[in-house]
């Protein structure tokens, strides 16, 4: 193949901006709960499986009869990282630690770990998963050290 010395490209005049609407009707209690400072999971009424993140349908047994359970939030860090090079939509954020912890109810959660420096984070660190109000129309949840 012939090599082109200096690549020439046409800058496309057509720009695409995508903002998805995320349907949360069937798990709205979870998002409502965050506003009230609560972390909810769902339990399948047929097979008893506890689901976090919460689901409206049970992939294990196929039932769609779920009960909402508030989680205590206490858990232990199993692994973590600190994100330095960020995705475009997070470019304004300071570096953030993402951790996966096993909660005392037996399910795991992935969330930011705040209030601690990365150098002080260890596998086994005791944490609590807590609800967080980011702004008027935006809620999330995060781990904080106990």
């Amino acid at each position, binding site marked *: 193949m012939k090599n082109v010395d200096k690549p020439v490209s046409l800058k496309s005049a057509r720009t695409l901006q995508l903002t998805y609407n995320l349907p949360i009707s069937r798990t709205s209690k979870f998002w409502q709960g965050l506003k009230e400072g609560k972390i909810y999971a769902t339990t399948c009424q047929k097979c008893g499986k506890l689901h976090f993140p919460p689901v409206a349908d049970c992939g294990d047994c196929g039932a769609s009869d779920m009960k909402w359970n508030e989680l205590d939030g206490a858990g232990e860090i199993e*692994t973590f990282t600190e994100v*330095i090079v960020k*995705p475009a939509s997070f470019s304004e954020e300071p570096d953030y630690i*993402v951790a996966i912890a096993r909660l005392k109810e037996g399910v795991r959660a*992935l*969330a930011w770990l705040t209030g601690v420096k990365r150098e002080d984070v260890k596998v086994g660190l005791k944490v609590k998963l807590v609800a967080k109000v980011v702004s008027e129309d935006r809620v999330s*949840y995060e781990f904080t050290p106990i």
Partner: protein
Amino acid sequence: MGHSRFGDRSDVNLSELSFEAVHPSLESSGLTAKEIPYMAVGSMGVWSEEPLPAVVIAEYCGLTGAGLVRCEAACASGSAAVFNAYSAIKGGQVDAALVVGVEKMKQIDNPTIMEMIGRAGYYLWEFENFGMTFPAYYAVHAVQHMKTYGTTEEDLALVAVKNHKYGSMNPLAHLRHEITVEKVLGSSVIAWPLKLYDCCPITDGAAAVVLASEEKVKELGVETPVWIDAIGFSSDTANLSKRENYVGLDASVRASRMAYRMAGVSPEDVDVATVHDCFTVAEIMAYEDLGFCRKGEGARMVREGETEVGGRIPVNVDGGLKAKGHPIGTTGVSMLAELTKQLREEIKPRGRQAPMKNYTALAHNTGGTGHYCYVTILRR
């Protein structure tokens, strides 16, 4: 088979890049474009402008009218395309098929690429609020592997050093310079503890292979056919938080056991392998998950040179994703192209030709963080 030069290929568009792989693959197969009844394309394609890559490639390469499909299995899209075409032949619907892997990633900016790949887990629970990135998904594996088995950042660096060594010997590779452990350890942190040189580059590239039935291969008089003995596959949860541990990829374990069983071989029979080293820790986990060593001994394999040419199982002696580059949907097809050359003992320079005992090779291709996995066993 055919294989473009990997790298920043801003000199060509998607179709032209595909042609660089398609044209030699057809020439070497003895079939013309018009004689190809089916083409499967492995491509994610969100970084380039064409939403229907299979259609534009078919038109450009003279295959219009053939059955077409684009396969998505994230970084394993290439293997998914191979499996798709293989199944069409196995099922007797066609006697030959072309598989193309192609990706043009350099057409958009890097933060947007980080965004698109970071979203490729469970979007709502991992990205929307937490901005996971691909290095971050593998970094959480590195942290637990290091904690559990004593693997060190130096061990991870050794994988990069090895793969750059072979990349420097591969004229088609993206990164063709040798590096040192110090250089890896001193490179900037991307997602702690993974550093720049622990990560594969963002790469453009294409690869193509022609698959054919046994009968068709005889009819064409192919001199040294290479056979697909088995394709094993598996998957894992979208949410990393739904997995039991982060020291390996269960999908790799399941897919490889399936492939070994189908082919009637064991890991000891493998003469050469390509494994999915999108990050250095991924190669160490792959050694273990594929059964090349016991769990927790992956770092020892690289420390003792067991995966170098001349070692027990040479791995990624084409430079791997790490140095050859990882054009997402291309990788699975590129692995088969490389292993075909290895099995035919046609590798030049000879320094990266693996010695053949059983003429058996293995390709391990994962998509996402072990979300998808395909293990293909080839035999000459």
